[in-house]
């Protein structure tokens, strides 16, 4: 029994319909509840409840402060490689995109790590495309082991693996695993994932359970909003979170709410979730799951982020780069261009990431929207009456 069977048994279309048909009185009743079923969650994300955003926001803020305190934790993504064997229509790293690619050596990864540590980061998320040759399990293990010498909390966002393949990464010091389902809508998923192992939705869906079995203690999930109907996705994420809280009870769970950003391949979002609806979704997740971490990345612009921080967000990235070598220029020397998956001579590329006028970095996964430095964001957090927390994990817990 895994979440696959549970997802297949959920009356998702009926729940979406319930959400769309909810009236204000019913929404008001749901918002006032003490505990929430999935049907209640459908009410919380309803257009009707959209009119109750202020009371939802107040409850969400109070709950978050009570459970997490007046603190916001920070992390940074560190991209190891943008090589990928998958073709996903919405992703800049897709195999067939003619972009500038590189896989950092462990030494280069450590250069990036030290640059992040100097900014304050004690919690780093290692991100890589899925490529068994460039991003092998042994390579990932070496990266984790090296990082763990200097960074207490190391998480991974890489191609899904078997439980047994995860164990050496946990042993090397990785404590968290992030895997976004992208979309829970099977038809949309099939259409968007045209080639590569990522085509298998169920395999990806069971990844958090395999990661938990291997000993990861922080699990991150989420949908990528902009692919399928956002209410459908949010209901699936809520059901998934509920399942994981019951079955993977020792893991700290986080939910991220990424919205699709412009990237190589120039994919246009298929669906839309407005700023107002995104805020409503943050509050709805908080009300339903008072103890689940909510993650907000630099995909969102500064003004929206600043408004969302005190409404229920507990973990944020800041000053992020989505290209390997983005923090120091590491790996510049061995960047190559690929055309339909084949390496060609590196030349001028429209997909190079500009850095201080030198357009020589590898291509990023997507364009970020909040370009402020980590220090600027930390100051902003303080001005909101919160403490920016860099370290909340000690190496002794995972070594």
């Amino acid at each position: 029994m895994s979440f696959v069977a549970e997802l297949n048994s959920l009356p998702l279309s009926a729940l979406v319909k319930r959400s769309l048909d909810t009236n204000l009185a019913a929404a008001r009743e749901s918002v006032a509840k003490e505990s929430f079923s999935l049907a209640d969650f459908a009410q919380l994300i309803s257009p009707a409840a959209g009119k109750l955003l202020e009371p939802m926001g107040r409850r969400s803020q109070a709950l978050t402060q009570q459970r997490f305190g007046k603190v916001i934790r920070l992390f940074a993504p560190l991209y190891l490689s943008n090589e990928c064997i998958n073709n996903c229509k919405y992703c800049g790293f897709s195999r067939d995109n003619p972009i500038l690619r590189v896989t950092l050596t462990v030494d280069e990864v450590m250069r990036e790590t030290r640059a992040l540590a100097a900014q304050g980061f004690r919690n780093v998320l290692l991100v890589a495309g899925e490529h068994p040759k460039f991003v092998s399990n042994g390579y990932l293990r070496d990266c984790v082991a090296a990082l763990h010498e200097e960074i207490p909390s190391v998480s991974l966002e890489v191609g899904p693996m078997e439980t047994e393949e995860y164990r050496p990464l946990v042993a090397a010091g990785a404590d968290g695993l992030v895997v976004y389902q992208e979309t829970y809508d099977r038809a949309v998923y099939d259409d968007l994932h045209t080639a590569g192992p990522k085509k298998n939705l169920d395999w990806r869906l069971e990844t958090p359970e395999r990661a938990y079995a291997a000993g990861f203690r922080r699990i991150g999930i989420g949908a990528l909003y902009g692919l399928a109907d956002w209410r459908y996705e949010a209901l699936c994420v809520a059901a998934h979170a509920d399942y994981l809280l019951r079955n993977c009870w020792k893991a700290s769970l986080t939910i991220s709410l990424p919205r699709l950003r412009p990237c190589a391949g120039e994919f246009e979002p298929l669906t839309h979730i407005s700023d107002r609806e995104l805020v409503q979704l943050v509050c709805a997740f908080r009300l339903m799951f008072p103890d689940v971490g909510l993650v907000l990345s630099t995909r969102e612009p500064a003004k929206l982020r600043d408004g969302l921080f005190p409404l229920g967000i507990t973990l944020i990235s800041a000053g992020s780069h989505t290209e390997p070598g983005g923090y120091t220029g590491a790996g510049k020397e061995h960047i190559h261009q690929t055309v339909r998956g084949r390496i060609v001579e590196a030349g001028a590329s429209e997909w190079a990431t500009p850095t201080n006028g030198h357009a020589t970095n590898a291509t990023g996964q997507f364009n970020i929207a909040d370009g402020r430095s980590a220090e600027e964001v930390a100051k902003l957090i303080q001005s909101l009456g919160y403490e920016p927390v860099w370290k909340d994990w000690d190496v002794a817990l995972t070594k």
Partner: protein
Amino acid sequence: MSLINQPLVIAGRTFQSRLILGTGKFSAPEAMRDALAASGTEMVTVALRRADLSGKKDPFANILEFIDPKKYLLLPNTSGAMNAEEAVRLARLAVAAGLPKWVKLEIHPDPRYLLPDPIETFRAAEILVKEGFTVLPYINADPVLAKRLQDVGCATVMPLGSPIGSNRGLQTRDQIRIIIEQATVPVVVDAGLGAPSHAAEAMEIGADAVLVNTAVAVASDPNRMAVAFKLAVEAGRAAFESGLGAPQETASATSPLTAFLE
């Protein structure tokens, strides 16, 4: 007249204040420092995972610099540990980093309600007591577990009133009464005390001290809330020491009608 209560003694060390404060969840380290001062506490607990134990004076993990070791006994806690091995490792690391050889043993594998694991807590307590630590274990309000931990040499027991950060007060009141009745070490009610009245209630039924964090840290005025808890703890203790009357079903006149027979 001011309230002069008996001092609290834990492992041979004397404390005038019976209020222990946690240091998490504050909006800034300065706010924490000020609330500690306002509360009159003499013992504060810090999550080791938030502190720098490397000795490198990490400016991004400098919480300990805001806690004056001359004013407060710093009680390291093992929050984040999922099992005995991790808790023991953290406690040893704290001593190596120059922190007191006292430990608030917290092992809660469930990150939602942060309820303590009795089996792992007991195992870690045995090891740490043997290694010479002064061990203050955070436990569910289980009288038998409390006795077992006393038997292996723990310096206190710290039963919860309700889950950490829940503000629900003394939901475990009846079990805590039994723990207090049977205790051979001080009983510190830890967790869930959301209002000064909760703290006063714990002290009135005979708890030796209380530990408070969330209620002070997330109050809109942490300093005033710290003082409110200080007063409640003192009042509750004074009431306990003065001999509280037992609740009765019927009224009982303050000037008895049969007084003339005396």
